[in-house]
């Protein structure tokens, strides 16, 4: 009974980046669900995409004396000082979905996927699918300067290197949004001979891919056949597109980062077991062969 009482009083602060995408909304929902299931009192702080707000939030958490802090860092750098403060206050910090450039002893563990790896999974799928046939690829980048955009580009390029049949002919930012994805794709299509020059699209997230698919259709081409579509995140809507044969593959970034994080925290609180410094989530590849409609139904209710 003593143990359960302390568990009930466990207060965890969660500094979330914001709510800039459906994926992040799902992550927030799942984190809250997981906390509720475990009887954790979750203090949630939305940083509106600003690092300074996240730092303020962590400082406030420390001032309030929470038992642990979850941090989804908006950017990798600049956390040393505030993490040191948390450490001084003996509050364990767990990083969610992105890592930081700080000494590893400043946080308990990081539950993340490997962004570079995601890009290379997508790239590898394209390499395998085209099987040596020449193919011009256009790329829709995420927000310029954001770490997913940089790493997913890097991973994709790594996977493509050495396969001279694959060429990235155009690469622009679509700001991770559907609207911009559609607009940029429209201009790609115009610029590349009405799209006849393009054989595949790689989008840094599914939302841009969904927008681009519409642009491809409106240009009179068949997405998924005339132009292969591969993207990252595995949000529900892309499975609908895959079911309709309009998208070919997506790499999952699971929104359930909190589950493993809370497990690690519980173990640590119980008997001080230090978890590994990096708990990597799986970057699973989904293709049209994976019963997309079924996956869609599973994911629909998660708050994407």
């Amino acid at each position, binding site marked *: 009974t003593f143990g359960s009482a302390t568990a009930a009083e466990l207060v965890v602060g969660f500094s979330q980046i914001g709510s800039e995408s459906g994926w992040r*909304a799902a992550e927030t929902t799942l984190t809250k669900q997981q906390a509720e299931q475990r009887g954790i009192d979750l203090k949630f702080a939305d940083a509106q995409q600003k690092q300074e707000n996240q730092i303020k939030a962590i400082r406030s958490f420390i001032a309030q004396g929470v038992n642990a802090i979850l941090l989804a860092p908006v950017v990798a750098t600049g956390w040393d000082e505030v993490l040191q403060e948390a450490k001084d206050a003996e509050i364990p910090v767990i990083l969610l979905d992105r890592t930081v450039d700080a000494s590893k002893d400043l946080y308990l563990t990081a539950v993340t996927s490997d962004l570079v790896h995601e890009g290379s999974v997508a790239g590898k799928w394209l390499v395998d699918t085209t099987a040596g046939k020449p193919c011009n690829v256009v790329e829709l980048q995420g927000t*310029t300067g954001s770490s997913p955009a940089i790493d997913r580009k890097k991973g994709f390029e790594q996977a493509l290197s050495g396969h001279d049949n694959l060429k990235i002919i155009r690469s622009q930012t679509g700001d991770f*949004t559907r*609207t911009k994805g559609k*607009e940029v794709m429209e201009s790609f299509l115009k*610029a590349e001979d009405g799209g006849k020059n393009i054989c595949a699209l790689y989008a840094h997230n599914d*939302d841009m891919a969904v927008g681009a698919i*519409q642009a491809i259709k409106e240009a009179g081409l068949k997405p998924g056949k005339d132009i292969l579509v591969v993207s990252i995140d595995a949000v529900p809507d892309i499975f609908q597109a895959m079911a309709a044969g309009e998208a070919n593959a997506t790499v999952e970034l699971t929104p359930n980062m909190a589950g493993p994080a809370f497990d690690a925290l519980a173990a640590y609180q119980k008997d001080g077991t230090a978890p590994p410094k990096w708990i990597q989530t799986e970057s699973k590849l989904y293709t049209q062969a994976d019963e997309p409609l079924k996956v869609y139904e599973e994911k629909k209710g998660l*708050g994407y």
Partner: protein
Amino acid sequence: MTSFFRLYLNRLLPQLIALAVIVVAVSLVFPGFLNLEIQNGRLYGSLVDILNRGAPVVLLAIGMTVVIATKGIDLSVGAVMAICGATAAAAITSGHSLAGTLLITLAVGILCGLWNGVLVAVLDIQPIIATLVLMVAGRGIAQLITEGAILTFNDPGLIFIGSGSFAGLPMPVVIWLVFGVLIAMLVRRTALGMLIEAIGVNRQASTLSGVLTPVLLIAAYVLSGLCAAIAGIIAAADIRGADANNAGLWLELDAILAVVVGGTSLLGGRFSIAASVLGAIIIQAINTGILLSGFPPEFNLIIKAAIIVVILVLQSPRFRTAFAFLVPARGASKPSERAAK
């Protein structure tokens, strides 16, 4: 009538020249730029894309012009777009008819405008701050409606507004053309335009002359809200979903920029809706041009800033007086004036 048009052309000349220069410059970098063809019964080509993609900013700029003419500013239009897009998506997915959905959405836009207008006209709060409240809170309201997700819909009627076409033109283009002409007629065929300009130049003197200042001020913000609502519907219909997080994000700045590129002073007074529409098209032409040019995206902002600075410098009053002899606008129109008579 001819002199009316000449006056009009004279007013729009700098914007037309700027647009022409950009179009020529882009088509030099990208030769296919001017191609137009009929595909699936609609015009297809980069120029059409500019008109189509520019729709939200054009619509916002129409409302913004009137607000700015009253010496105000409306920072909330981007957020109102998001609210209205979310409202439309929520309404249509919860089973309302298309007409009902549109009515609800427009009403919400008008309500937002009313809120801003009351803050400015009745509570006498400075426009930037008054509309900042809704700018900050509005996106939250939009997310409250969609619960942070992208609310997708499949209603063909609503989708038609975003990607259908009418008489060969994309629907968004048709909508802003019709709406723009309507509003321009409304302000210029009635006395509204003059009264609004009077308020913008000297609110106190206008009130003393019997102008119904508070009502007109509120009306200006209501129009801006309405424009944002239409823009929000178009943006949502375009991607078949309401993206509360990103719809209209920072578009208020583009809209203000469009108004200024169109030559309307931020200090209020004289305004031209046609010029603001051209301003918006110029900005979209820059954006599309950058996308077509194939530069790495890191350079987007620099290129955009540079072009805007050049356009603004060219139409700044100082520059125009200093180089008046280069611009034959006034001098050259004289002989033709004589010829016309």
